């Protein structure tokens, strides 16, 4: 069933839409953001500045954005998908041409009132485009090579641009999220098997190319992989982040050292303690209980999204919801793996918790689309 078949009358309208919002999901998001504010307050040494206060404002703005997006019918977003995707690719190219250089990577465009990270935007618009594509595509063509190649191109264009910034973390995220939407859309599993096989081949090639003239990654990216594989080899150099992060996490123990008592984060042993490594502060101060609680909140968000997607009556709603859930999952899974020493340090923030404007806003907008799909689903005729 496509949006055209919606019996518009059976979907809520006007202010009644508010009643049909996925309120549990909204509450979960508020909880996670609350954890974030608490941790930002703690790492600032018990102060709302410089991080907690702006974060609250951004979340408030993000929440408003989510509600606004949710109120707009889902079919509008479906129609906007191609446009949004095109815009974000143009912005990515714009970053390439006019972007500021921050932290060694060219990542944002300064809009004056905020810094826009097009790569953040792309994570969502790519999912939207792929969902819209499969909503449109007749079922029998789903696994035909030509119709598989097209979405692959949709994925690879932004991925290549992001990789060039260079932002390895986001490009992996884009690749994985795009692949997940294609998988959910029902593309034949043989394609994925082939890609995974090719991926293994590529990884081998990447390592083989090291030190040769056709070296495929930057030296620092290789070093990150090295230190991930053996953080002890250089505990004061590049492995420092991972080692210190594990110390912080482990020293939290079962119940943690108490709010604002985390020595590792408070004494700056942790790098990027307010952004990528904020989870270690949580784990240090609230221990295993705190860490598992946040993980549970995340898992519930994913579950609510899947439940909402299964209840959807059209392919766009279902795929976009699942795609956003996967993107969200990839965020926290990569970030947590990274701080627990299971993945290389790739610079992926902890969603809704890490300090950061555009990531938060884009995620809230994405959940707005999830909410919109939830609100605007037909609910029988009465």
């Amino acid at each position, binding site marked *: 069933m496509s949006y055209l078949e919606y019996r518009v009358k059976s979907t809520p309208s006007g202010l009644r839409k508010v009643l049909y919002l996925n309120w549990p999901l909204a509450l979960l998001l508020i909880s996670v953001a609350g954890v974030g504010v608490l941790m930002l307050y703690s790492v600032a040494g018990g102060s709302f500045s410089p991080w907690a206060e702006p974060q609250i404002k951004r979340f408030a703005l993000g929440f408003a954005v989510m509600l606004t997006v949710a109120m707009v019918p889902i079919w509008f977003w479906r129609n906007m998908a191609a446009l949004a995707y095109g815009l974000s690719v143009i912005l990515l190219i714009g970053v390439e041409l006019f972007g500021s250089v921050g932290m060694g990577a060219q990542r944002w465009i300064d809009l004056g009132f905020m810094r826009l990270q097009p790569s953040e935007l792309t994570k969502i618009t790519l999912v939207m485009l792929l969902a819209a594509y499969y909503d449109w595509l007749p079922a029998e063509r789903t696994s035909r090579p030509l119709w598989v190649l097209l979405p692959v191109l949709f994925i690879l264009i932004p991925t290549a641009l992001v990789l060039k910034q260079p932002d390895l973390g986001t490009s992996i995220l884009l690749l994985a999220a795009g692949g997940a939407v294609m998988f959910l859309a029902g593309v034949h599993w043989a394609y994925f098997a082939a890609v995974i096989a090719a991926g293994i081949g590529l990884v081998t090639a990447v390592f083989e190319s090291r030190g040769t003239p056709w070296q495929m990654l930057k030296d620092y990216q290789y070093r990150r992989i090295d230190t991930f594989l053996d953080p002890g080899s250089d505990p004061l150099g590049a492995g420092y982040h991972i080692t210190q992060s594990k*110390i912080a996490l482990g020293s939290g123990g079962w119940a943690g050292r108490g709010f604002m008592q985390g020595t590792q984060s408070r004494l700056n042993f942790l790098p990027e303690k307010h952004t990528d490594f904020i989870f270690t502060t949580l784990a240090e101060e609230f221990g295993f209980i705190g860490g598992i609680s946040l993980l549970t909140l995340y898992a519930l968000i994913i579950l609510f999204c899947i439940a909402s997607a299964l209840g959807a009556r059209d*392919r766009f709603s279902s795929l976009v919801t699942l795609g956003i859930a996967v993107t969200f999952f990839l965020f926290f899974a990569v970030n947590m793996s990274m701080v*627990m020493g299971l993945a290389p340090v790739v610079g992926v923030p902890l969603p809704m918790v890490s300090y950061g404007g555009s990531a938060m806003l884009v995620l809230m907008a994405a959940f707005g689309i999830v909410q919109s799909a939830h609100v605007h689903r037909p609910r029988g005729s009465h």
Partner: protein
Amino acid sequence: MRRNPRELDLLNRVSGRRALLLGGLQLAFAGGLAMRMRYLQVEQADQFRLLAEENRINIRLIPPARGKIFDRNGNVLAQNVQSYRIVIVREDAGDVDQVLDKLSGLITLDPEDLERARAEMQRSPPFLPVTLADRIDWAEISRVAVNTPALPGITPEVGLTRVYPRGADFAHVIGYVGPVSDYDLSRIEDPEPVLRIPRFQIGKVGLEARREDMLRGKAGAKRVEVNATGRVMRELDRREGQPGADLQLSVDAELQGYVQARLGDESASAVVIDCETGDLRAIASAPSFDPNLFVRGISVADYRALTEDLHRPLASKSVQGVYPPGSTFKMITAMAALEEGLIGPDDTVWCPGYLEVSGRRFHCWRRGGHGHVDLQNSLKQSCDVYYYDLALKVGIDKISAMARRFGLGERHDIPMSAVAAGLAPDRAWKQRVHGKEWLIGDTANAAIGQGYTLASPLQLAVMTARLATGRNIMPRLIKSIDGIEQPGGEGEPLGVNENNLRTLRRAMYAVSNDRRGTAYGSRIIEDTFRMAGKTGTSQVRNITAAERAAGVTSNADLPWDRRDHALFVCFAPYDKPKYAVTVVIEHGGGGSSAAAPVARDVMLQALYGDTPPLAAYPSKDRNRIKAQQERLHRERLRAQQEQSGRA
């Protein structure tokens, strides 16, 4: 587009299945993360907790305050004063050049210091403070302190630094401290951690080095919480250290100052020893240097000036310098002969001006000879032939044994640097060291304190004190440690015949009180303070037969470094000895003309405890002495002002 229901159903079934599959995978991954968290936080928690504590807690040493040094009257000789210095932390400064520019507008910065600081900044991590200027005065430090908001990374700091208020007067006795060098560390087995504190100072030479163990004290420690860059965030607890012991010396700072001034720029040394306690009242070595220069870090030019000076200011001549004692040794030769009973005080020897010993002529200093001389005359006029004769009768082994009983050829271990042992040679020594037979001529040379015999001014002072008291006087430099009186050096009786001692003392009395005595010109005429002494003139070169034939060249015609050393040993008052004084003036010429007047002045200064009245001097010298006293007084005043101006 419109889809038929069957197609849609199929698609939804596929998507739904895959959604559940993917959802399941996601939950499984989350479960994996939870397991990992459990592993780190529950199973390995203790280990990581320990690592976190190691990260966080740093043990910092609190350097102990070094013990102070006082003279016998409580005058400060070495102390610690607060010194202000300016440090910069590169990390906080941002633009170092700009900050330095601003700073040099406020205070004068030494370009040499700046260069060094820049080099240090390049080497050290950015959060470590680097000293820009040391020993800043109060006015400058307050100017910087007021302006710190405009000077990021600049901090005024307070530290303790060693100061020697008496400057050059005690340079050789106390020595100086300096920062611990790699060489120092390499010499110490298992060095205390406190030595690794940057800028920590330890004794380098002199008493500071020899009593480092007492003066240093024990370092305290504090446990501090540090952040990742090593900056101290707060103090957790502290254990106070123990300051070093305060030492009180036997030396009288006023007397020492006078002696240094009296020696002036001569390459000379003087020792004043208390005959009752063995206390060293003065141990002077001239010329001297300002030890404070070394604490600050001496400039290359200043150091070169000190090392290239022919008069060797850095050498501690009073204990380190060894000289042929010359005629001052004659008391020992006589004592050996008297104790052996080989001569009586009234036995005479014929002095024709030389003595033939196994075919070689040993000359008396007076070419014409002294005629018939007994013991008193021989000492009074310092007849050499008398002692050649005595020595040949007694033999070198007995003479050297006697020398050792009187403290020659043995090291008096006072806590100064490079205390020399001197040498009282005997047959076995020559065989051992030179592998040669002892010759009869060696004995003749030794009899008059020439040849192999060597003694330091300290040893000669001890010898004189022992002659004056008949007791085994031991020199004492440290009077008390932290207020606890140290054992004195009164010593047991030497066990020599008191009559023999009295004979020698009477002869020494004649040296400086008999009209024909070699030191008559430098007598004390105050009756209660009559002085007994002995002159010595020791050759530093051999006089060849050709020279002798041409007539002995007078000292004044020789280059300075080939002239004779002038020595004088004395004690006073004659009937109740209080002090023994030794003066050695390197290449000073004759003992009676160069050394004795100095020794007399020093002795009077010691006996009166202040500038002596002119009445103590022979009347014809009084005008000259008065002028000299005034000149010395002026010089010392000026030196003191300079010292306090620098401090």
